[in-house]
């Protein structure tokens, strides 16, 4: 286990380093320098050169990368138009648009994304897996057909469409739900949940559909397994057979998918955030791309990569916990 973790963590850091190098290179491939963002409209080429110098942008790319890495571990300072800005470790860069270390920006937007994704996960894992399992147990019945038919319908809708329709129906027209908004959980849990309800429902419905179909297929397969027959042959009641024996085995592959999904969602659910006007990581990244705020772009890419890599490790460990046959090594 320990060896596995060390190995995976090494691999993960290598991946992150590789991604940081690639984004760094992209950063340089963009024909706009952050100096433009800083210097503004009436900026002369001489002035651009000066700003680039003060930002270290005239340095060779390798030196700049070393500075970036140093910043991550030691922190660094930035010269923003004569103002020296401290950027404490882990420093992922400094945004010349928002005038703050990138980590400050992420600190504000990450809780929003985490709230959206966390709640939606709970919805679509419980609803999706529950529905899928029931459909599998009642395979071929009207319930099975209706729920799976509905899930195909939901799965083929887009967040953009469904979110828009739900906004119109539940918020604008009937006022049944409050406007999607973010209130920190610690401030007012009720307002937090209320403001997140619609994104949870939307993301939840769409993903429930996916998970319901997956869970159904898995469960049907598992119900055919010999060990399920054994459990029944022991004289276990049907409920216990389904829950203790079939569900546990059927759920394992779903854990992998859910984990990987969680990883990629945490990197930002751009469309959901946009539809519901929530300024999470995804929207921050999209806005940064539009504004050529490259430090933010780079940091969000790295953050997304980090979540995906981290979730992969967590899923592998979880897998070993669930399935004793899996040996980490």
């Amino acid at each position, binding site marked *: 286990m320990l060896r596995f973790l060390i190995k995976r963590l090494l691999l993960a850091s290598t991946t992150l380093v590789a991604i940081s190098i690639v984004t760094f290179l992209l950063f340089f491939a963009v024909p706009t320098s952050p100096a433009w963002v800083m210097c503004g409209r*009436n900026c002369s080429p001489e002035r651009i050169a000066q700003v680039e110098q003060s930002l270290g942008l005239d340095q060779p790319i390798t030196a700049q990368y070393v500075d970036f890495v140093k910043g991550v571990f030691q922190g660094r300072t930035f010269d923003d138009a004569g*103002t020296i800005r401290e950027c404490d470790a882990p420093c992922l860069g400094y945004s010349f648009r928002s005038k703050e270390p990138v980590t400050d920006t992420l600190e504000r937007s990450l809780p929003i994304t985490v709230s959206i994704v966390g709640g939606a996960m709970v919805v679509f894992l419980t609803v999706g897996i529950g529905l899928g399992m029931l459909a599998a147990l009642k395979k071929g019945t009207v319930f099975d057909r209706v729920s799976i038919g509905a899930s195909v319908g939901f799965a083929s809708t887009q967040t953009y469409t469904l979110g828009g329709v739900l906004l119109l129906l539940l918020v604008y027209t009937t006022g049944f739900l*409050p406007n999607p908004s973010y209130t920190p959980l610690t401030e007012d849990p009720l307002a937090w949940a209320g403001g997140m309800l619609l994104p949870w429902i939307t993301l939840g419905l769409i993903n429930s559909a996916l998970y319901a179909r997956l869970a159904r297929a898995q469960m049907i397969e598992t119900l055919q397994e010999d060990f399920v027959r054994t459990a029944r042959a022991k004289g276990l009641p049907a409920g216990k057979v389904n829950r203790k024996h079939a569900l546990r085995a059927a759920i394992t592959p779903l854990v992998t998918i859910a984990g990987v999904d969680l990883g990629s969602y945490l990197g930002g659910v751009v469309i959901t955030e946009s539809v519901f*006007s929530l300024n999470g990581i995804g929207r921050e990244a999209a806005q940064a791309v539009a504004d050529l705020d490259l430090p933010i772009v780079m940091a969000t890419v790295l953050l997304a990569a980090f979540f995906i890599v981290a979730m992969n490790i967590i899923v592998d460990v979880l897998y070993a916990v669930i399935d004793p046959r899996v040996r980490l090594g």
Partner: protein
Amino acid sequence: MRRKFGALPAGVLTVALVASGCSATTNDNASGDQKNTVQTGTIATDPAESQGPAKAVEGATKGGVVKLLHEAEFAHLDPQKIYVSDALSMAQAYSRSLTGFKEDGKGNLKLVGDLATNPGEDVNGDCKTWKFTLKDGIKFEDGTPVTGQDVVYGISRSFDPDWGDGPIYLQKWLTGNAEYGTVYNGPFKSPDKPVPGLTAEGNVITFTFPAAQCELPYAVSMPAASPVPKAKDTKGDYDRKPVSTGPYKIKEHAYDQYIEFVRNENWDPNTDPIRNGYMDGIRVEFGITAETASNRIVAGAADDQAAFVWTNVPAAVLPKTRAPEFAEQVKAGPSQYVEYMWINTSRVTDLKVRQALNYAVDRDALIKLRGGVDQLGSTITSPTVGGFQSYNAYDGGPTGNVEKAKELLGGKTVDLTYAFPNTPVRQQAAAKMKEFYAKAGINLVLAPLDPATYYESVGTKGNKYDLIRGGWGADWPSAATVIPELLDGRAIRDKGNMNLAYFNSDDVNAEIDRIKGLKAGEAGAEWAKLDKMIMEKHAPLVSQYYIGNYEIHGAKIGGTFLSDNSGHMTLSSMFVKP
């Protein structure tokens, strides 16, 4: 030219509007939403007009918090950096300048002294030396009195070469040099140098210009002429949390998320002729698209009843807002922006072709394409400019006069290249233009250009485009920020031209010089005459439409109207209904 926040409407949304049956007939010239107020701006001569408090708004009550639902974070809050219309409107809440506009929402707009006791004294009557005296009792949010030195310091900051986002009038005028950076670089880079031409003694601030600058009273209405306390100048961070002199101060600013403005207890309404300061606070929420925001306001949930927007209601939501119950909540009117098709006079030398282009334009079609909140254009300046006179030198009716155009062309057909930024909205417009000009025998060869380098391409002298998409908005309600900026042929350079007609005519240049020497209050009517003369005699452009503003606020907001200065709903007179 200042930029308008959110000026580009989403092209795809217009489809919905057409489908819903709006603006179906051609005679409805799509300007039905507008109260067509014509600007009658003047400069206040009576010092009493510059004295506070602001005239009470009928039915207004104190208290409540309004909520601005905004698409994106303001480009700047630092008064010396602000130049985009939304931030200009926001600055009204916390940043007072030497002068300011007093408006009544009925087209009466008067420049008065805001921090100053009057809109400026032209000491020698030659527009070269101007004197402003600060009112007594003006304080920063921390209670420190505002001095003349604070104003000088504020203006000096706008010279910083890194801060080039703001307007550059004062810098150029004070140094007498378009490349003002060669003379002075602001307090950070030239800490020991005095600001050229600008001095303060106690409460008196004096501007001394090498040349006549009769428009100065207008120029110092912009936030760039706001005081900044040197001791509290956080430089880059000032952009996040500037020190207030207005009725509101920033309590909290979470970048990209929200700003919370609360009452500034050190603002004395008795010194302020413009702002009523009825609300207890303003909350700005970012990241809410125009569509979401308008939908929310139309839906009118309890916490959105005191909400408002500073963006146009998008086409998808427009039909709903046209319902009678929203009549009070919708504020529509022309903005200071005019959409042009420039005619490159160095290439299209035949006046008759230029006139034909003016006759054949189907303005109605272009406006409908955009959702129908704009107004038929015809003049170079917008109706929001002081002294504006409406005329149409080539009146072909809303949909254009093809016969008249053909007559001018004398049976010929012409091929002309039309350059425009390659964005969906502009593509649609270009396609429409190609369609209606074809009827008159004018064949547009479309040249879509990379939007990022568009102005670089068309602003280069000797470019090969006959027709060029463009637009312009006045920085303050005076044609002095339009006609000389655009059509003074002596300013044509190799690169970075704003005179996209590459128009240079001695008679026009001479008139520009003459009117520039007139007092700001008298110049308006003269500019209007020149506007008409240029179009009649030279036709260097087609004025397509005055970009319309169409904003909405919640049912509980009262007292506000579209400002002829900023184009957005005013905060000064806004209040929350109980």
